[in-house]
């Protein structure tokens, strides 16, 4: 299956062939996971949504008219699911109305890199994750995010600075 084009795999998946779809999962799950991680900032949530998005993609594969567009299509599904999840989280926080304000986690010394990544703003977190976990190529990040390389440079610079400030406890 690995040698097939995306379009072929999508066409075969439309017949209910899970092996064909599994090949698409192998090809694109990592990217979808990274995007989810970039939006949500949390590994467990990213795993959940990336899996759900892939499964939704399988259930709705017949809706995809141009099989060569599988990657952007399934990524869009994942993004929408992430946004909905983020909204529900917001709702949940609102509903619970945590009156007993939780102690502000300004424990500057013990901030792990994972916690720091979680605290980064979404607009800089996604390019940073893609850059470091996807071959450290600004050009690749620019292509995947559909922004200019100059734009990626700027976001990476900001992210580097923000991450440092979070780890130092200046920005929580």
């Amino acid at each position, binding site marked *: 299956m690995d040698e097939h084009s995306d379009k072929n795999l999508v066409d075969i998946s439309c017949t209910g062939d899970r092996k064909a779809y599994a090949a698409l999962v192998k090809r694109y799950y990592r990217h979808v996971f990274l995007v989810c991680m970039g939006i949500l900032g949390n590994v467990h949530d990213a795993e959940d949504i990336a899996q759900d998005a892939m499964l939704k993609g399988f259930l709705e594969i017949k809706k995809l008219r141009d099989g060569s567009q599988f990657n952007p299509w399934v990524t869009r599904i994942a993004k929408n699911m992430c946004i909905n999840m983020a909204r*529900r989280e*917001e709702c949940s926080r609102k509903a619970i109305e945590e009156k007993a304000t939780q102690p502000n986690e300004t424990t500057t010394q013990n901030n792990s890199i994972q916690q720091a990544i979680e605290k980064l703003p979404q607009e800089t977190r996604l390019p940073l994750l893609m850059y470091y976990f996807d071959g450290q190529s600004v050009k690749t990040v620019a292509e995947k995010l559909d922004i200019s390389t100059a734009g990626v440079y700027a976001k990476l610079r900001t992210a580097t600075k923000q991450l440092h400030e979070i780890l130092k406890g200046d920005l929580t």
Partner: protein
Amino acid sequence: MNSPCEEMRYKIADYILGILSQDEIEALDKHISQCSQCKEYADALQNEKQKLLQFGENLDKEMNSREIKVIGALDRISNVKTKLPSIWRIIMKSHIAKLAAAATIIAVVLLGIHFLDKSATPAYALEQTIEANQDIRFLHFRFDCSNVDMNKEAWIQYDQNDNIKNIRVNFGFRDGENKDLVEVWNEGKTLVWKRHVNVLLIFDKIAEYKIYTPMMLAFAERFDPKQAIVYLYKMQQDGRATIEIKNGTKNDEPIRILGRYLRGKYLTHYRPNMPHWYDVLVVDPQTKLVTQIELYEVKDGGDELQGVYKDYDYQPFDPNIFDIEKEVPSDAVRIVEYDCTDVNSVGIERGNLDANQIGPVVVQEFFNALIARDYEKVGQLFGGMPTNEAEMQFGNINIVRVVSIGNKVEKNERSPAYYPCVVEIEENGKISEWRPRVIVREVLNSHSQRYRVGAVK
């Protein structure tokens, strides 16, 4: 660490990112060798880069197992899609077999044995309903609540990608007060029309996003059949619910999908203290579309029906129903609800005063701020209106004296409660009287602790 040379911060970040030219690296090296602060900063960033790379490696190590997990889940769904219907078709060839199979299902359910595989349980009906929902773009349904004197009627429109585009919900209360309100939501804008007091609430973007968007989406998630099935399935996967499917014994008998939420897990992301409830989705065996959703509360003396979402209708309707501005009378009082992130920053705290006593205090403070031309304060008293907007709206009113703030006039079908006021204003060197009606309301999410000016008419 003291702040390093500001101009070097970006150079150091660029160096860490590996995007400096050789000349620039040499110049930076030279600077760092002479500047301990910048060296410390560069070391820290380098250290953080290593941590990032390590974190990435760890994430990558687990990527394969994540993919396997997804493919495993895919297998289960695949079984649902391909195997079960064909087995089902074979079994269902004879009428006797149908009865026998149905009897078996009922017997198993009655015995309370969950014998089907966790993921495969909902297979047959759920998958077909998901398929049937795919081309649906319009939905209209009603809700009757047994214990609360209220009914709802809702309209939902979807876009081509199956995302919700518009929602309208009409609420009718039969509690003698004749409350009657309409909520319309679409991405980025929420309007609430309180017909019984002739008020249109307009939520600004942040307030809308924080309050109405999640609320409406949570509502739609459970009662919009497109999402309700997926929601149940997800809850089951998370171990928060079990699903049982009861197929009718005859062809035209509805399929009933029982989504039983574990105690304390029903809608807990939305309402933490919900009692132990469960849903029953009734599916038309021919169209495979949901026709009704019943809500039950689990009680010791037997489960009790709490409400029914019914009359599900999937036929297209006029999308103008979402344009309630056309329905709102021109004399309606328009109140904007602003961002309520920090409720303590807007309005005035009630303190020991009761809801009636705080009203005149808010009005007086509001006029005082206008007299002082303190538009930041005006905006704050107006529920968080931005200062420039407050100046634009009230800047041309030159109040010189508050003559009187009258007793509250209670709400009626044409207006919310208001305070009739008399103030003197100066215009072109002349003093005249202005008699505005000032509406005071509680600050959103302040739990009746803070009050603000809602509107001035």
